[in-house]
């Protein structure tokens, strides 16, 4: 899921002040931002209270079912078109994909209420870790299911670097070195030591990414 964190509230206030918005509509997201406790009903109501405390009027709020989904968000915003029409700005408590989907769906100025930080594993409730960069060229087959691109702070394919000490990472010192973990798991599974991996092909991950299953069977990147 997409991990979001709350955004510096003063920046949100400054964004609204910049266009002189005193009436605001708030939209959360029922998916990732709800699980991340950043854009569910509780957080939307907290944002409402803060906006009201700073003298603004909240014309209404809703939690998009899947805010990054254009069809669903189009429907959600049409259902609340009166409240949105009454507002001068919309604050979206969702990831950047969600914010842009809302911005495409309505004509009003839309502002981000969260920071989008990473694609995260839910380790347990409220604990998220980044394990995948979506690099488009998976190496997990060679690395015992542990991603060095993501979990080595330097993203080295071949390691460890010179800062490893007693199996620990030099950058995040309480972490086990990813490259030690990879080699250990390969040995435990009776596999060969990791071969030298070639430089990554960043042309596999050119911005902006696009997949269209309708255009070409199996999709294209």
């Amino acid at each position: 899921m997409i991990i979001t964190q709350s955004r510096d509230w003063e920046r949100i206030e400054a964004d609204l002040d910049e266009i002189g918005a005193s009436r605001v509509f708030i939209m959360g997201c029922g998916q990732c931002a709800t699980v991340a406790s950043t854009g569910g009903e509780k957080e939307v109501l907290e944002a409402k209270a803060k906006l009201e405390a700073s003298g603004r009027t909240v014309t209404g709020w809703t939690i998009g079912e899947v805010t990054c989904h254009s069809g669903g968000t189009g429907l959600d915003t049409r259902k609340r078109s009166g409240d949105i029409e009454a507002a001068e700005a919309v604050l979206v408590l969702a990831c950047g994909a969600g914010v842009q989907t809302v911005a495409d769906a309505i004509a009003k100025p839309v502002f981000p209420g969260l920071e989008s930080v990473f694609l995260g594993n839910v380790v347990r409730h409220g604990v998220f870790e980044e394990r995948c960069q979506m690099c488009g060229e998976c190496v997990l087959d060679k690395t015992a299911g542990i991603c060095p691109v993501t979990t080595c702070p330097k993203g080295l394919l071949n390691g460890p670097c010179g800062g490893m000490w007693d199996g620990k990472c030099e950058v995040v010192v309480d972490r086990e070195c990813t490259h030690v973990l990879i080699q250990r798991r390969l040995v435990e599974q009776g596999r060969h030591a990791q071969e030298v991996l070639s430089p990554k092909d960043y042309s596999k991950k050119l911005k902006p990414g696009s997949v269209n299953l309708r255009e070409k069977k199996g999709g294209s990147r």
Partner: protein
Amino acid sequence: MSRLRDALERGEFVVTGEIAPPLGTDLAAMRQSIETIGPYCHAINITDNQGASLHLSSLAASRIALEMGYEPIFQQTCRDRNRLALQSDLLAAWTLGLENVLIVTGDDPRSGDHPQAKGVFDLDSTQLLEVASAMNAGTDMLGRPLKGSTDFFMGAAMFPEAEPWDIQLLRAERKVEAGARFFQTQAIFDLAKLERTVAVMRPLGVKVIAGVIVLRSARAVDFINNRLAGLMVPDDIVARIKGASDVAIEAVALATEQVRAIRDIADGVHIMTLGLDSAVPQILGANQEA
């Protein structure tokens, strides 16, 4: 031909030193350091944004050392440049007469003076060694022929004291396969660990230049143990240095003893003075009298 390469291949015990280029354009202090340690060194490492902190480039400073009559070891980290820039700088280095290159990963920007910087790490040190090897063979990393190749004498970093050893060893062997002909090690305190390193590397035909660091002050010891990656000063040495009536004198005495011992084990010594450049002749000279 590289004097360092020549000496190592003849089996001579080599001495290398280390210079950090300035933060700025005033070269006086750097020239002074080079003049101080240069006469005692086969070659001098010129660091590349050492400690992930801004300095004048190793490329320019290496050329200056060469023009001063000393042999530089151009250092290249993978932190600040992508594969285009790395290859371009390797070609530049060769045309500037820089024959020795030390290829290292580089500290993470988070540990330096620009923690907001993007760490590039487009290639890692093993991959960059492979690229430099390809250039020596006359091609770029895509296999396209170069108009004029390089003939670098390539080194890599090694960490004999960092455990787990089996993983360190595998990593070092991979660097050798990628083209490293010599290793410069992190500072050594445990000579048994240096011995096991040399024992493995000698049969591979790879030279080991052992690191010695001059623990010139209590603050330096704390800095190494708290801030410097890949190195820890053992407790008995900490006690010896911190308990000394004159820390600098004790640090030089310790370094002198270490150099003496390393002569019997490794192929050379790499002296990191932490600014106490004037101690280099003493560290080596006292040894010659012994």
